[in-house]
């Protein structure tokens, strides 16, 4: 459902009363996605009158005869009255305003919104709707951010050369030095070492767009050997000669079944209250979960370091580009981008880099750690991401606006949720299932004021620097709040947290009164 669908009526004739002091305005009333717009007739002042719909606090409608009145009370305490011709028109406009003023969290974080930010930072990128009907890539959203100099035709060719059509797209633009983080799936080089001129051109355009002479690194989340083997099944990796300026690095990250097994074994170990210290430590080691955390964080740091310190562009992909790839790109953004560490920014990151980017939640999170069902597509990649974020939060306890509560909530909702956000495997499927019209968005649920205390970090203060975590084993911890959530007494730590909240609120209060 698009915003425009909420607009019931195109336009109507109306008179606007703005209180006793200002003269009434007559003209054509229009409701757009974000604004109420009154365009006075040409003979009057040519200026448009605009009202941001989100500033409407309450709305009241009355109909009498063949006209109606809508009273808008605004958040800035203004009271406005609209006299509208036509009963139907009045009701339609009232409904539209009602529907739009609340904002629809389903439209809170589309790639378009991120593009607005990128466009303010640079003009090297454009928003392409080449995937409008999902025909190019079923797992990508409709709109994608791509190099400005590459046309849709070239994109289509590149998509044909990448598994699942996942051609390289912008994941994050690092404004401080103009470098870019991209993600894709593996190129379909196959045993014949096929090439694709448009794909090569696309990556070349990325470097040109960043800075003349910029270099790039392709971080392949498979081992060099696995990447080579993939050629036998039609996949493969970028040939050095075909992509001048780009250098390939291999950082094997565990995914799929081994990752699921690691998760299962960790949860098993955490459920045993009687085991000896030695047994526990050996199981903790044996399940290798923290090893995966370390590898994921290190690879994200590598990507972030490449951008921030080497001034290089980074392309991340594995095979399908829907799991480890997203893990790396989303973590790298958290490390580099202070905005992604805010409450809104992080939700946007999850929406953009996981949900819209086509992480197959339905397949990956069908079963959790206790299921006896033979795992087929399950893998806790998203949980691994949350764990890594938790580790970042532990090492930089003042730099994330959200707390452990939000991470726990996301974990819960990814596996089972009354909201629709994590349903299906891609935007395409969500469209077919009418998720947006038939369910509610998780974000509107989470952003209720009453939830905030659980989800927010009371000590947050904007940290404009990159946050480089330590990935030494001594610095990584088991996420007790998640894995031991039901086995340890939560009470002392919860009351301690409550106390911290109290100190912070006291602090705000006393500051206010002094």
């Amino acid at each position: 459902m698009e915003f425009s669908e909420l607009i019931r009526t195109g336009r109507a004739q109306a008179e606007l009363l703005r209180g006793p002091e200002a003269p009434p305005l007559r003209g054509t009333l229009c409701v757009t996605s974000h604004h109420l717009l009154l365009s006075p007739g040409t003979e009057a002042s040519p200026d448009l009158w605009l009202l941001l719909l989100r500033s409407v606090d309450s709305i009241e409608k009355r109909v009498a005869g063949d006209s109606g009145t809508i009273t808008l009370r605004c958040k800035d305490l203004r009271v406005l009255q609209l006299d509208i011709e036509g009963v139907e028109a009045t009701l339609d406009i009232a409904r539209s305003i009602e529907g739009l003023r609340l904002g629809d969290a389903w439209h809170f974080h589309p790639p378009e919104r991120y593009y607005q930010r990128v466009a303010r930072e640079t003009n090297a990128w454009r928003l392409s709707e080449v995937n409008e009907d999902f025909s190019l890539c079923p797992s990508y959203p409709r709109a994608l951010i791509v190099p400005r100099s590459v046309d849709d035709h070239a994109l289509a060719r590149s998509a044909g050369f990448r598994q699942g059509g996942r051609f390289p797209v912008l994941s994050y633009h690092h404004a401080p030095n103009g470098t870019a983080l991209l993600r894709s799936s593996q190129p379909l080089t196959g045993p014949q070492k096929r090439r694709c001129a448009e794909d090569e051109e696309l990556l070349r355009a990325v470097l040109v767009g960043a800075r003349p002479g910029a270099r790039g690194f392709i971080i392949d989340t498979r081992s060099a050997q696995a990447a080579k083997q993939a050629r036998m099944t039609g996949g493969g990796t970028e040939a050095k000669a075909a992509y001048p300026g780009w250098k390939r690095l291999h950082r094997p990250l565990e995914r799929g079944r081994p990752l699921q097994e690691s998760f299962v074994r960790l949860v098993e170990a955490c459920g045993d209250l009687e085991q000896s210290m030695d047994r526990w430590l050996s199981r903790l080691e044996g399940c290798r979960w923290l090893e995966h955390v370390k590898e994921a964080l290190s690879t994200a740091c590598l990507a972030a370091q490449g951008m921030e310190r080497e001034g290089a562009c980074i392309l991340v992909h594995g095979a399908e580009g829907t799991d480890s790839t997203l893990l790396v790109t989303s973590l790298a953004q958290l490390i580099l981008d202070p905005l992604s560490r805010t409450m809104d920014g992080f939700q946007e990151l999850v929406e953009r880099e996981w949900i819209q980017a086509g992480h197959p939640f339905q397949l990956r999170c069908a079963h959790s750690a206790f299921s006896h069902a033979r795992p087929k597509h399950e893998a806790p990649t998203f949980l691994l991401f949350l764990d890594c974020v938790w580790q970042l939060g532990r090492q930089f306890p003042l730099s994330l606006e959200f707390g452990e509560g939000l991470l726990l909530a996301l974990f819960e909702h990814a596996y089972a949720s009354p909201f629709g956000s994590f349903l299906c495997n891609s935007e395409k499927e969500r469209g077919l299932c009418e998720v947006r019209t038939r369910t509610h968005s998780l974000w509107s649920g989470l952003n209720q004021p009453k939830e905030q205390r659980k989800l927010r970090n009371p000590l947050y203060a904007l940290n404009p620097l990159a946050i480089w975590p330590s990935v030494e084993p001594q610095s990584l911890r088991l996420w007790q709040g998640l894995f031991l959530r039901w086995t340890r007494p939560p009470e002392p730590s919860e009351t301690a947290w409550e106390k911290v909240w109290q100190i912070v609120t006291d602090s705000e209060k006393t500051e206010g009164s002094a």
Partner: protein
Amino acid sequence: MEHIRTTKILHHHIASVEKLALTTSGCPLVIQCKNFRIVHFIVPRERDCHDIYNSLLQLSKQAKYEDLYAFSYNPKQNDSERLQGWQLIDLAEEYKRMGVPNSNWQLSDANREYKICETYPRELYVPRIASKPIIVGSSKFRSKGRFPVLSYYHQDKEAAICRCSQPLSGFSARCLEDEHLLQAISKANPVNRYMYVMDTRPKLNAMANRAAGKGYENEDNYSNIRFQFVGIENIHVMRSSLQKLLEVNGTKGLSVNDFYSGLESSGWLRHIKAVMDAAIFLAKAIMVENASVLVHCSDGWDRTSQVCSLGSLLLDSYYRTVKGFMVLIEKDWIAFGHKFSERCGHLDGDPKEVSPVFTQFLECVWHLTEQFPQAFEFNEAFLLQIHEHIHSCQFGNFLGNCQKEREELKLKEKTYSLWPFLLDDLKKYLNPIYNSQSQRFTVLEPSTVSFNFKFWRNMYHQFDRTLHPRQSVFNIIMNMNEQNKQLEKDIKELESKIKQCKNKQTDDILTKELLHSIHPESPTLKSSLCFKEQTLLPVNDALRTIEGSNPTDNRYSDYAEEFSKAEPAVVSLEYGVARMTC
């Protein structure tokens, strides 16, 4: 000048000095410290390195107490201030607080001249019905004369924690006086007739001791005792366990798996859990069964000190305050003769006597602070600072191995006590979320499920700044708390002034003035704190300050070799000449 960072290392903190093979840039010298700092120097000339090496070896191992830092440390206090410092902790006062002497317990003068037991303090509390001959007889039947005496008295339960050393029972020896004394202890508890005897050693060790004429109590010979082994390993096992732990942690490029398998094979956390389990057993015997408990190990100054002090800490919230914790250390560790000088290797002596027994106690307390974040008045920095000073030899408290030796050294005249110096810096050591009121924290019941024991990074890596969180929650909460208090005070003051003014009916002008006199340092907390990296630990030590975190600090360069500009491998952490202080 301000750009030159000096690293100061006390000679007494040096645990080992090692000269490595010559490299192209010079001769590497590695210094390991007792506070777990490891420093690498590269000395350009080998001869210099050799000289430094030899001097350090000599300087770090003193032969006489009089050469230790405490005897030359001068904080510019006069004698009365010094004495006041020593009087800060008064154990007689502490026994009074516990409620002894009383109708069942009395102060014994048997050891007033250290005649019965050299390693006990002069003042000892024993059951009122235990006569002097019984005490003397019992002391002859106990290793090093350390007969059963009161360590802690639980006023509500009227139950006692007593401590002693192992009996000289061999395979069959008995001692009527000793049996009488134990009976007297159980009789001193009006509620419960039986008492526990906890042998904190593994059963096998205790049995082996029988061959040497020592051993453990035979339940048949003592009426009403319940005997229990709890299996804490001896000082040698603990020493090598820590050694292994440090070796694992010192490995460069340590993988997660190697870390955990090393943690497991070192056995360190297993030992910590054993100590904690013993303390919990002790606390439960008193709280649940109302029974008195007698604790011993071999000599009764290592494991016994651990278990008695930790047990008391679980039972009595007073020991969880700053002052109470000092009292606890003075009582169960210093006064009862934990051999600090030998265990910490203050003097050049038998390396086999060195053992991290007290460090384990501090770690157990740290684990409790992790499980009960609001139950302790002090914070982690307090524990670390105490650990720093058991090795620093800067203060007199931990010098010597027993009270008698300390008196002979005239420590109270020649050295200073640590405690007043800690209290001077109290703010650094306070836990901002301490809740002294909560009923739930009167008796702590920690969980000892294995996964509650974590590696104490802030102790064993306290100087490895790259491993720590880059921001400290502690500081910020502490500051907020401070500010809240200040602002609340200001508000009250202003309100009362306004009231006064109103009474005088000269409100208009004065209120305006008042409004300007608002505390000038109006908080800009958030803005001022966010742009710089935070100090990890509240200890105001430049060396522990986390500097701007950057990727090379974190050695991602290991991962980023491929980056052509990757920096050359850094061999040494610190260049330059060490400035030694003593």
